[in-house]
């Protein structure tokens, strides 16, 4: 899983049927210090996350299907599976 921050959303009408009904969010990976690290990507929302939230993202198909509770969504790979309350890093 990756730590990331939700920075926005994507609106799409014409899309693969397995993606209908899901919110698509733009996420920016962050490090333990909360600073951006690497390139942004898109993830489906499985936990009612929104812009500004720090989240956990899983990037694997089987896990993604279990997060969404949708075994038919075989083409889905990247899903937000948790909203992070706090990160504690040892000094």
């Amino acid at each position: 899983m990756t730590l990331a921050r939700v920075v926005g959303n994507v609106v799409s009408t014409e899309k693969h049927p397995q993606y209908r009904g899901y919110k698509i969010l733009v996420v920016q990976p962050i490090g333990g210090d909360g600073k951006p690290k690497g390139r942004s990507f898109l993830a489906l929302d499985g936990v009612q996350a929104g812009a500004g939230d720090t989240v956990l993202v899983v990037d694997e198909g089987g896990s993604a299907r279990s997060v969404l509770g949708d075994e038919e969504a075989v083409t889905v790979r990247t899903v937000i599976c948790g909203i992070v309350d706090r990160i504690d890093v040892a000094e």
Partner: protein
Amino acid sequence: MKLGRVIGTVVSTQKLESLEGLKLLLVQPLDEKGKDAGAALVAFDTARAGEGDLVFFEAGKEAAQANPNGWFNPADAAIIGIVDAVNVTGRSFP
């Protein structure tokens, strides 16, 4: 999933049976600001996309699952949808 722009089409006659009938498009990955992010790649289309369209695509083995010819195929990127709008804190595009 990543954002991308369709920048061209790819024509291939001699190819695996499992890739027949697919529309192959050249996609330039983009970041959340719409700037180029990495090297262009070839993805097959499931969303009736065309040159110039802003799209999002899925990479890896999950992309192969979107192939209507069956799951056992070598596709590793699929265009999943056409993007109407990207809203990122403070700015939006297209």
